[in-house]
């Protein structure tokens, strides 16, 4: 393969000369320079009629047949140029594919992260696998006794007397437990309340599972009515193996009742 070496820059043309050592060099120019004349011919180089002439004394040797050169269209470097262009196109295609891949990955990251959170239970999200089979087969961890304290709150506009019936209860992870709250409506009008709950400490909330309770649904109390409200819950046995829970001995379950007004829609988690 012939490699073309740039020899000189003329006013607007570039002269290429091959390094192939053949006595008959293929030059490609319309004008010659002095440098070229020293290189290829120890006489004078002249170009005319698309031909290069080497003039030594009186002899005139035709160096080669020279073709007219159009700016940018060098047929001797055309092969190289085509190769470069093909290489550029390939690289551009790869970069474009990588860009599209990155955009697709950023869209796919949302469900993937959710799956990861469910699998590892980080960030307090619900750990998948809360089924009745798990409750049936879980083994209580008898050597880890936890104190669950109960708290009851009422929103200012709700006139119920709402309080827990036991201040604390001692449970072990893996064992279901029952606790009671009591609510009384001292007014002489029926009142509808709805409640939510909170768990302290925050990280223990992911292990606190309520099987059944009285929260997130409207509860109606008739005038001067008093009812018992049970909470049936258990603490996940994996609580004992979590290193972050090693110092946690007390969990506080706190319920707050709000008045449910007609037409006021609460955003309830997981409920339709």
């Amino acid at each position, binding site marked *: 393969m012939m490699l073309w070496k740039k020899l000189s820059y003329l006013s607007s043309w570039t002269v290429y000369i091959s390094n192939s050592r053949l006595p008959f060099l293929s030059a490609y120019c319309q004008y010659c320079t002095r440098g070229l004349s020293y290189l290829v011919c120890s006489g004078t180089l002249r170009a005319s009629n698309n031909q290069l002439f080497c003039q030594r004394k009186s002899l005139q040797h035709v160096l080669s047949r020279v073709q007219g050169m159009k700016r940018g269209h060098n047929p001797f470097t055309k092969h190289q140029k085509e190769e470069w262009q093909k290489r550029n196109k390939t690289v551009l295609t790869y970069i474009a594919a990588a860009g599209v891949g990155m955009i697709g990955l950023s869209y796919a990251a949302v469900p993937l992260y959710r799956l990861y959170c469910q699998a590892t239970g980080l*960030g*307090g*999200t*619900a750990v998948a696998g*809360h089924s*009745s089979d798990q*409750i*049936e087969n*879980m083994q*209580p961890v008898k050597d880890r006794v936890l104190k669950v304290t109960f708290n009851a709150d009422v929103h200012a506009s709700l006139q119920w007397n709402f309080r827990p*019936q*036991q201040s*604390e*209860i*001692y*449970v*072990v992870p893996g*064992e*279901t*437990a*029952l606790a*009671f709250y009591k609510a009384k409506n001292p007014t002489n009008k029926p009142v509808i309340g709805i409640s*939510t*709950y*909170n*768990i302290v400490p*925050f990280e223990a*909330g992911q292990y606190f*599972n*309520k*099987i*059944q*309770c*009285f*929260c*997130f*649904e409207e*509860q*109606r*109390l*008739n005038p001067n*009515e008093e*009812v*018992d*409200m*049970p909470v*049936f819950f*258990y603490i996940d046995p994996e609580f004992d193996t979590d290193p972050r829970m090693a110092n946690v001995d007390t969990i506080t379950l*706190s319920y707050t009742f709000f008045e449910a007004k007609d037409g006021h829609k609460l955003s*309830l*988690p*997981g*409920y339709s």
Partner: protein
Amino acid sequence: MSTAMNFSTKTFKPRPPDKGSFPLDHFGECKDFKDQFMRCLRENHFDSGACRQDSKAYLECRMERQLMAKEPLEKLGFKDLGAQKSPGPHETTAP
């Protein structure tokens, strides 16, 4: 609590209960069972593990009176207490 000004920290997300909400016991049909359970708790210094028979009896009372969806008690974590119906608040187990 839930109204704290935590902008970037994790917030507590309450989860709905697995089996939904207990219907309210407006007529106090299971009040005796509840009283027995509370008495047991007070006697045992609020140890939940000691009063599981009474909690089982309370849940059975609820199931009988349509205040709770009927379910086999093993699925509620009472597998080790056996499938027999627990004695009511005024009955005593035969020695």
